[in-house]
């Protein structure tokens, strides 16, 4: 391990090279921060918590989407060098910053918000935590909308209308939520060429999710739920 790290950053269409001093336990976010503070103040990038909780620092590192605050340089550096770029599949604002609006619009289009029918006057909804539906929902609810899965997905890059793994995963957690009353509308929203049926089980989303969720499993659940509803005439 040499004393300096060779860093290439994709800014627009050009790769710019920097040299950064290497330290033990250094993260890729440390590297980007160093470059912006000490070498080039015009470098634009996003971060917030820097401790692996918010997902804001997601970028492409050596070709794979990752949380840069949780990526140790030692783990990813090859020949003392790394290459950093913005997340794939999202419009570029500048340098390492992407426009997340389509990501969240698709979340909404997939029916990604909860709708219940109970009021404060009703009793609590009894939901057994060990029921199959609740276990399925619990397996997917920790998503923080960081966009890594969306960036990793080949179908998103091939099909601009595809809702994507995060939006579909969220829809699945709500379809599995016994208290939600908009299941039929949600299944209608996620069925079709732009929805769950476009998933070809590449499983890049599952492979890259920093919270170890499996959107593939959620999407498979949606495929089955949609088929059942269609057969029953409920779609």
């Amino acid at each position: 391990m040499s004393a300096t790290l060779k860093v290439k950053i994709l800014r627009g269409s050009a790769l710019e090279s920097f040299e950064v001093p290497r330290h033990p336990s250094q993260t890729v976010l440390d590297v980007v921060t160093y470059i912006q503070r000490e070498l080039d103040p015009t470098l634009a990038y996003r971060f917030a918590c820097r401790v692996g909780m918010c997902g804001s620092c997601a970028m492409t590192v050596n070709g794979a989407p990752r949380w840069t605050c949780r990526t140790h340089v030692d783990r990813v550096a090859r020949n003392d060098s790394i290459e950093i770029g913005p997340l794939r599949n999202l419009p570029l604002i500048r340098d390492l910053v992407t426009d997340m609006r389509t990501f969240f619009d698709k979340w909404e289009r997939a029916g990604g918000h909860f709708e219940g029918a109970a009021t404060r006057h009703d009793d609590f909804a009894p939901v057994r935590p060990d029921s199959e539906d609740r276990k399925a929902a619990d397996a997917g609810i920790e998503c923080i909308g960081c966009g890594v899965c969306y960036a990793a997905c080949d179908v998103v890059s091939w099909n601009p209308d595809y809702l994507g793994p995060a939006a579909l995963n969220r829809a699945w957690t709500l379809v599995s939520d016994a208290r939600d009353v908009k299941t039929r509308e949600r299944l209608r929203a996620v069925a079709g060429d732009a929805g769950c049926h476009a998933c070809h089980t590449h499983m890049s989303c599952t492979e890259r999710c920093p919270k170890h969720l499996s959107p593939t499993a959620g999407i498979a659940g949606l495929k089955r739920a949609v088929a059942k509803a269609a057969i029953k005439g409920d779609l």
Partner: protein
Amino acid sequence: MSKYFALVHRVSGLALAVFLPAHFWVLGKGLEMEGFLRWTEQPMVKLAEWGLVVLLAAHLGGGLRVLAVEFLDWHEWQKSLAAIAGALMIAAGLAFALAL
């Protein structure tokens, strides 16, 4: 890993979609069966047949993986299903190669 199995599945499917009409057309031409069998003895034809069976095995293996992911409950071991599917692909191809 699964991404590569999915791509093999897709490319083998494309190749089969091209082969299948040709296969049907040749068989339906009412070729004199004896002459046809002699033609299939040629080494290039044998190689093509072997390639086709490998494509078929690859597509079938990849397809079984898709069915498993879509219909069986999610478990970590499903990732190794991809590996098993691959092994079956190669096994089928080899078995046919031996039978040729």
